[in-house]
């Protein structure tokens, strides 16, 4: 048995000898996978751990993810404890020192200021994140700041291609800035409009567009909607003049439809991340789709 094990290790060591020179990146969420495509499409290999139909709060530390983590040179995640239910376990089991700290560990929420930092952390208040709301991908200014930091990190880890990363970032920045201007003009009618949200995941988007959140289907963040709480929202939704009840593609939209049926306010499923609908093929499409759908609710 001992001999066999030894031979297996030797064999695997030979098989696994590093032949690929490309930087391997483990992206926790599709939005960061898409951003990496923009910033370094040809010079890196990206493994995206989750998809738009998964609730990233509760992903499991599956064996396949451990295997991917084992090979990564860089980890790109939202951070702010969004992945706390699985990422620490993956890191501990993967035995990959490159991504546990320092340069190989990139947390998007650490690159920007977060909103919703709770004054106190108490589970009675639901699944609150002490480091603030981690869903930063829906504010284009924050995305740009994250892109700048990520591009610099790529250049640091893969110095040979640093010029490519810089050039690709410059290109991305100009396209993104132009897109922001376009989105802001297009989304102007949304300013001041009120919405009811499913989970408190939209604060960055609403703040950017000047919209207001007047209620949440989850009585506490992370606690599934209850019928009593939903009933109490009927008046809030009507009186507050909500234009839509918004949820993410991965969420169960039944409670949204229930409330929509009783208030006449449309239930709107937004992609939330890249891959959340047909149009959200990349970060640009994600914003296009989100704004189109919100504008659609005004009609």
């Amino acid at each position, binding site marked *: 048995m001992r001999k066999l*094990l030894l031979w297996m290790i030797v064999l695997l060591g030979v098989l696994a000898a590093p032949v690929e020179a490309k930087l391997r990146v483990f992206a926790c969420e599709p939005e960061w996978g898409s951003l990496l495509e923009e910033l370094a499409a040809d010079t890196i290999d990206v493994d995206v751990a989750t998809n738009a139909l998964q609730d990233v709060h509760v992903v499991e530390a599956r*064996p396949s993810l451990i295997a991917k983590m084992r090979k990564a040179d860089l980890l790109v995640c939202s*951070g702010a404890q969004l992945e706390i239910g699985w990422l620490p376990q993956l*890191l501990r089991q993967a035995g990959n020192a490159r991504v546990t700290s320092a340069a190989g560990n990139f947390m998007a929420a650490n690159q920007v*200021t977060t909103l919703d930092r709770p004054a106190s952390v108490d589970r009675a208040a639901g699944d609150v994140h002490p480091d603030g709301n981690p869903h930063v991908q829906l504010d284009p200014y*924050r995305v740009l*700041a994250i892109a700048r930091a990520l591009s610099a990190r790529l250049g640091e880890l893969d110095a040979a291609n640093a010029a490519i990363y810089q050039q690709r970032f410059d290109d991305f920045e100009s396209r993104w800035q132009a897109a922001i201007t376009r989105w802001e003009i297009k989304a102007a009618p949304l300013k001041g409009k009120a919405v009811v949200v499913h989970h408190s995941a939209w604060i960055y988007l609403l703040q950017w567009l000047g919209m207001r959140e007047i209620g949440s289907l989850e009585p506490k963040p992370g606690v599934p909607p209850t019928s009593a709480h939903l009933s109490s929202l009927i008046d809030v939704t009507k009186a507050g003049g909500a234009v839509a009840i918004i949820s993410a593609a991965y969420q169960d939209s039944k409670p949204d439809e229930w409330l929509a049926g009783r208030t006449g306010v449309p239930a709107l499923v937004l992609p939330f991340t890249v891959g959340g609908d047909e149009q959200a093929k990349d970060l640009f499409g994600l914003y296009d789709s989100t704004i189109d759908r919100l504008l659609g609710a005004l009609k």
Partner: protein
Amino acid sequence: MRLLAPALALTFLLPGALQAAEPPPDAQIAALAERIRALEANAQMLQSQAAEALAAAQAAQAELQRMKTAQPDPAVAEVSVTAKAGDVTAAANQFNPSIALILNGSYVNHSKDPLDYRRAGFPLVGEGGPSANGLRLGESELSFAANIDDKLYGQLTVAMESEAGETHVGIEEAYIETTALPGGFIARGGRFYSNIGYLNSHHPHTDYFSDRPLAYQAFLGNQYGDDGVQLRWIAPTDAYLEIGTEAFRGENAPAAGAAHGGVGAKTFFVHAGGDVGSNNSWLAGASILHADARDGEDGFSGRSNLFLFDFTWKWAPHGAFKDSGIVLRSEAFIDDRKGVVIDPQDPLALAQSWEGKRRGAYVEGLYRFSRSWDVGYRYDRLWAASSGPYASDHDPQRHSIAATWHNSEFSLLRLQLARDEPQAHFLDNVFTLQYQVSLGAHGAHKF
């Protein structure tokens, strides 16, 4: 401003008064005219002063506006230096170390007195017996974990249990583990649960049932852990592959007496896993526990090799098991022993030499149909030896069903019914109602 208003009023009123008093040109009038001119000049000065002040205020406001716009977006301005060295595990909790507490309690009703419980062919070892009757506080578990520095992680799990009025505090796990070895190696030292099989390295609070499978109870005294060292290696392959070995002191069942100068048990294990599409994942393993026993709890002295094979299949839409899914799991045990047995109840009895195999297995399925509910079924079976001191014609078996309600990720209430047949003509129907909660750090669970 207060001065300005009357001054302005004078400016407008006085020219009118002057016109009315025009005709008699004498010295008094000239003096008056002089005063009016002085007042006019004064008013003009005040007016211009007011205008200047207004202009200055406007300029200041404009300056402020410029400063505001010149400042970068506050959202992106604050990129801290520490952020670059962002360390996920350090940020895992507000506390350092992170503290987690598991509380549980139960009401158990056995149709047969647990004191009469005997398992045919498998003497009870460790904590492998049935639970006590009635209301009972379960094991409370307190665990501390944190990265020690840039190269080490440490964890302590203390279990507190009250039995017959006495409180026992025991160290379940206390180990340090490397986080920065190159090449996918991880080394661990201290006291910990062995990585053999599937359930063994999992804490009971992650189980789908309120008790461990019969095979775990019979062969490992519920769960095998001891003081020792571990080295494991994760292969850099597309599929998950983990290979490892451990050496233990050899004090706990199935080992006993810390043989070989205190290195009485060794293990090897291999685990492999992966995904099939985006809805299915699997994990399989093969392990061996080689233990030397000197006067074990079951009266055995000699060497034993325990082979374990485990297999887990999880199906969940988009891999999101929190809301719905199915888990199928099975583990099989083969216990191969060679040595002597002295009846532990009767120290004067003659030693009987024994060489033989015993087997055990379980199959369990869990169906989770919402975030709040799951139901599970488990079938346990042990195969006793046909000859030797533990020989038995009866093979113990057990059926269990459980329904669990989760209020949140952190609390559950479980109802379990079991039909246990540990020996011939002894049928124990067990009703268990259990609560279990976790407080503190949000523990990330293994697959």
